[in-house]
C-alpha cells in the first residue's frame, strides 16, 4: 500500500474526507456571516447562538411536535430566520447609522442572552438527536466506514452553498444585493426597497446558520454552548478568506476543514490552533485575506 509519511494513502484519504465534511460546516457558517456582512457591515456575533437555536429547534420540534428531520430542515431555518428578521427590525435597524462595531456588540449581547436562557431551560449536558432513518447506517468504503449521514451533510451543505452563490451572482435579486452592498443610497434612488432588502438578507443569513444547526444536530450533541466555540473558528475562517467574496467564504471554509483534518492525523495536539496559525500567516502576507479587497 502506498504510504505518505508513514500513513497509508487510503487512511489519509478517509481523514481528508472527514475534514471536508467539517469544512462544509465552516463554509455554511462563514457564508452566512459573509452575506450579512456584505450588506449590513455587521459581524453577526450571534451567529453561533443562532446555529445552536437551529439545532435546538429541531430537537424540541421532534420531542414535542413530532416534527421529523426532513420537515425540520425546511421549517427550522424559516422559524429561526423569522427570529432574525425580528432582531433586525427591532434592534439592529436602530443602530445601522452608527459605527458598525456597535452591531457586533449588540449581537454579542444577544448571543449571551440566547445561550444563558437555554442553559437555564435545558442544562448543559448535550442531548442527542437521532439520525433520520433514511440516512442511518453507512458505507464501507474499504478503507473506512462512512456513516451515510456524514455523506449527506457534505452533499446538502455544498448544495446550499452553491445555490446561495448562484442566487447572489446570477440572479436579479442577487444583483440588487451586490449593488446594495456597493452603494445603498443609489439603490434607494432607483426605487429598490433597501431596508426590506437588509431585513431579508439578515433573515437569510440567520436561516443559513439555523440550517447548519439542523444538519449538525444528529452529529454533535445538542447543547446550548455548541455554537460559541465553533463561532470563533469561523471568525478565523472569515478573516483568512477576506470579507469581500461569497465564493471566498465557501472555498476557505472547505480548505480549512481539509487542513484541520490533516493536522488531526499528523499532529493532533495542534488541531485547534492550526487555523489560527494559517490566519497569522495569511495576515502577514495578505492583510485583507485571501479573497478580500485591500481596504
Amino acid at each position, binding site marked *: 500500500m502506498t504510504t505518505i509519511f508513514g500513513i497509508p494513502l487510503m*487512511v489519509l484519504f*478517509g*481523514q481528508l474526507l*472527514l*475534514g471536508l*465534511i*467539517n469544512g462544509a460546516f465552516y463554509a455554511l457558517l462563514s457564508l452566512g456571516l459573509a452575506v450579512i456582512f456584505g450588506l449590513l457591515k455587521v459581524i453577526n456575533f450571534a451567529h453561533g447562538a443562532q446555529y445552536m437555536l437551529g439545532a435546538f429547534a429541531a430537537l424540541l420540534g421532534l420531542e414535542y411536535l413530532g416534527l421529523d428531520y426532513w420537515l425540520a430542515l425546511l421549517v427550522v431555518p424559516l422559524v429561526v430566520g423569522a427570529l432574525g428578521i425580528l432582531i433586525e427590525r427591532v434592534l439592529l435597524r436602530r443602530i445601522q447609522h452608527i459605527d458598525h462595531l456597535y452591531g457586533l456588540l449588540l449581537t454579542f449581547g444577544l448571543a449571551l442572552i440566547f445561550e*444563558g436562557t437555554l*442553559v*437555564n431551560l435545558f*442544562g*448543559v*449536558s*448535550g*442531548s*442527542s438527536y*437521532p*439520525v433520520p432513518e433514511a440516512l442511518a447506517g*453507512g458505507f464501507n468504503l474499504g478503507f*473506512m*466506514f462512512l*456513516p451515510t*449521514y*456524514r455523506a449527506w451533510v457534505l452533499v446538502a451543505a455544498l448544495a446550499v452553498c452553491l445555490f446561495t452563490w448562484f442566487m447572489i451572482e446570477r440572479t436579479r435579486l442577487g444583483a440588487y444585493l451586490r449593488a446594495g452592498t456597493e452603494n445603498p443610497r443609489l439603490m434607494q434612488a432607483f426605487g429598490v426597497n433597501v431596508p426590506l432588502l437588509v431585513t431579508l438578507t439578515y433573515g437569510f443569513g440567520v436561516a443559513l446558520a439555523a440550517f447548519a444547526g439542523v444538519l449538525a444536530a*444528529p*452529529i*454533535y*450533541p445538542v*447543547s446550548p*454552548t*455548541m455554537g460559541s*466555540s*465553533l463561532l470563533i473558528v469561523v471568525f478565523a475562517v472569515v478573516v483568512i478568506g477576506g470579507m469581500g467574496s461569497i465564493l471566498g467564504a465557501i472555498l476557505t471554509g472547505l480548505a480549512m476543514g481539509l487542513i484541520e*483534518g490533516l493536522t*488531526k*492525523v499528523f499532529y*493532533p*495536539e*495542534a*488541531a*485547534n*490552533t492550526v487555523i489560527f496559525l494559517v490566519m497569522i500567516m495569511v495576515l502577514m502576507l495578505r492583510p485583507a485575506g485571501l479573497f478580500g479587497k485591500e481596504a
Partner: protein
Amino acid sequence: MNVTKHALTATAALLLAPSLAQAEISGDVVKIGYLADMSGTYRDLAGQGGLEALKMAVEDFGGEVNGAPIEVLSADDRNSADVGANTVRGWIDQDNIDLVAGMVASSVTIAVTKILDQQGKLGIVSGSAASSITNEHCTPNHIHWVYDTYPMAHGTAKAIVDEGGDTWFLLTADYAFGHALENDVETVVEENGGEIVGKVRHPFPTSDFSSYILQAQGSGAKIVGLANAGSDTVNALTTASQFGLVQSGQTLAGLLIFLNDVHALGLDVTQGLQLTTGWYWDMNDETREWANRYYERTQRMPTMVQAGVYSSTLHYLNAVAETGSDDAATVRAQMAETPVDDMFASDGRIREDGRMVHDMYLVEVKSPSESEGEWDLYEILRTIPAEEAFRPLSESQCPLVKG
C-alpha cells in the same frame, strides 16, 4: 525565605490558637456555604440539585444542631477560581461561615481549599475529580467525599483488563488532567498484563472526534479508553456511535463520565459503555428511598455528587452535634473517628489525607431494550472494595501522611 515561612506559621498559629480553645458553636449558628457551578458546564452534575440535596440533609437533621439553627448560603462560582476564592474569603471574613460544601471545577476547589486551610475552616469537596486534591494539594481542612480520578481510571481499567480487555487505544485530552488520566490507565493496563496499542492526544476542547475515532478503529484495539471529560467525552461517544465503533467489536471505556451525561445522551449512544461510579440511585432500598424523595423535589434522579453532598452534610452535622463545637479541627477529628454509614456508603472512612474511602462500582450502561425507565441506566457489574479503589496511602505525596 525562612522569614516568610516563620511569618506564615506564626499567622497560622495565631489564627488557630483561639479556635482550639472553643468548644461551642460560634455565633450560636452553624453556617454552611454551598459553592458550585450553577450556570456553566458542571451545573447538571452538582448545581442547584446539590443545593437541594444539602437542604434535604439540613431538614432531615431537624434544621438545628444542639439548639443552634443551621443556615445555608449558596453561590455560583461560574467555574472561575477568582470568583470561588473571592466568595469563600467573603464568607469567612464577613459571614463567619463554618463549612464550605459542593465545589466542582478542580481549579476552583484547589483555590478554595488553600484559603480554607489558611483561615482554619472546613471544606467538604463532593464534585471535583482531581485526585491531587487529597494528594499534593491535601490540607488538614478539607475532605474529598465522592470520587476522584484514581478510582475512575484505575477501577475501570483494572476491571476491564481482568475481564479480558487487554489491548487499549486511548483518546486523551491534551492537558495536565488528560495526561494524568492517561498515565494512570497506562500503568494499570500494563501492570495487569495488557497493552496500549495506540493513543492520540486531542486538543481540549474538541467538537469533532470523527478523525480520532477512525484512528481508534484502525488500531484494532479491543478497548477504546476516553481519557477526557465533560463535553469531550460526550462528543467522542456520539461520534463513536455514528461510526459503529461498538458494532464493529470494540468496547468503549469512559474514565470520567456521569449519570447526567448518560441520561442526556441517551442509551442508543451510550449502551455498553463501562465506567466507574461512586454511587447509583438504584442500588438498594435505602438509595431508592432517598433518590425518590430527591426526585420529588427536583424532577431528576440524583447524581453521585448530589448524593455525596447529602451524605457528607449529614455526617458533618452529626459530628457537630456530637462534639458540641463547630471548630474545624474538632469536627474534622470527630468525622474521621466515626465511620460513614448511610445510604451513600457503608463503612466509609476518612483518611488522614482527607480522602473519604468507600466502595466504588463498575457499571455498564444498559441497552435501550434492557432499560425500564427514563433513569434506569446502569447495571452494576461489580463492587470495587474501598481499599482497592483509592490511591493507597503508601503512594501518597500528601505531607499529612506519615511514614
